[in-house]
């Protein structure tokens, strides 16, 4: 299994790690038995994502996709953020090994869950 430099960069130095107190949107996806869990916290003002933090239990590609997808949705409108696909995330990382494509779904689902949480609260 060979990762791109970008994957390794986001894995070794993940961006936006942590939590947000009283988030406007919160999502948690995955399960420990599958080997991956992602938590995502959003701060949203006027439908714009002004802050995002995550925590991920999983392989390097799960961590890297979590990290880059938080960068990709920061300062975006929630409807734009909802458009983020796992394919786009993988492309932004210069690709993922075929066996690891499913890990990128984790980030997509995490973001969706957090935005749905926000929509529900609204």
């Amino acid at each position, binding site marked *: 299994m060979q*990762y791109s430099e970008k994957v390794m960069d986001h894995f070794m130095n993940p961006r936006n*790690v942590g939590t947000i107190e009283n988030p406007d949107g919160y999502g948690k996806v995955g399960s420990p038995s599958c*080997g991956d*869990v992602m938590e995502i916290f959003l701060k949203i003002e006027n439908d714009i994502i002004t802050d995002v933090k995550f*925590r991920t*239990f*999983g*392989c390097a590609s799960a961590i890297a996709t979590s990290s880059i997808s938080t960068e990709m949705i920061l300062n975006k409108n929630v409807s734009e953020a909802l458009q983020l696909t796992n394919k786009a995330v993988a492309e932004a990382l210069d690709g993922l090994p075929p066996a690891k494509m499913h*890990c990128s779904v984790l980030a997509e689902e995490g973001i969706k869950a957090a935005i749905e949480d926000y929509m529900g609260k609204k």
Partner: protein
Amino acid sequence: MRVYLDNNATTKMDKEALEAMLPYFSEIYGNASSMHSFGNESKKAMVEARKTIAEIFGIETDELIFTGSGSESDNLAIRGVAKAYKKRGNHIITSSVEHPAVRNTCRELEKEGYEVTYISVDENGVINLDELKKAIKKETILITVMHGNNEVGSIQPVEEIGKLAKENRIVFHVDAVQTVGKLNIKPKEMGIDLLTFSGHKFYGPKGIGGLFIKSGTRLGKVLTGGGQEKKLRPGTSDVPGMVGMATALEVAYRNIDEEFKREEELRNYFERELLNKVPEIQINAKGAKRLPGTSSITFKYLEGESILLSLNYKGIAVSSGSACSSDDLQASHVLLAMGIPVEIAHGTIRFSFGKYNTKEEVDYVIQELPPIIEKLRMISPLWNEFKAGK
């Protein structure tokens, strides 16, 4: 600093063994089956290599054949017995912690109409002898159980199994790929009929393995062709490989007890230090007799691949029992068979020490590992839930 702690996967070739094999590439290169002097020189080296290995095992030279790998030896042993003893029965007994070369071969035989019983192991990865005893029936033609487990290091009670096999006149195959070169092994005194080993696991070359076949044990053929290796393994003899493997074995057995002790002490030191420095870890198979250099550690609330890659970044090479780093994304069947829950099996790393590892290297790992675990746990939701007392 680069530290290689993956000696159960493969080893750096021994200098003496490499030097011994070098002349057989382009100086003494004849085909060992040829009748001329070029062939005779090669044949002599082959005979000598066989003798060296046979003496170490305390077996006859005609009880030993060379193959292309440990996997091939496993296949030949298991498929060979299945074929040759078909008339007597179709039942095979194995353990639930075998290497894929044995496990998948048994699975394949199930598809072909054989019945296979997979004996469970305890939490230390040691086979349940009572269960094995009860599994024996009159159709049982083969018991195949590994000696040392490649993932956690547990050593199986092969002598006891050998006795059971003998009492019941069942052929007994032992995959000793992880123990040959590390432990003293006399197959005949241990009741073993077939024993697999592989050169590259004990500082010999890759691409060569061997199989001890106790005289009288019948084997069906898996590969057919020329008459080499008692017609059980066709193909032009890999004389350099044979010489390299035999020399490596000789070197290993020169001070096998001292090296066993040294590796064991190094490994124990590593585990003691780690337990002191990193919370919430678990040493697997700790209660079993273990391979001296194998340390399987589960880091709770983490995923193995991320640890492996972080260590790699620091120049430290280990392997993981993590689903995420295996091709089929399945958690290790060995860890699961030991009753380790899937969630935590994911966080397992195998450190395997070998003869080239030093205390200085271990100290380096002990220094680098704790901050890596800390950092990864910081971003793990599971760890944070645990800390929050959930």
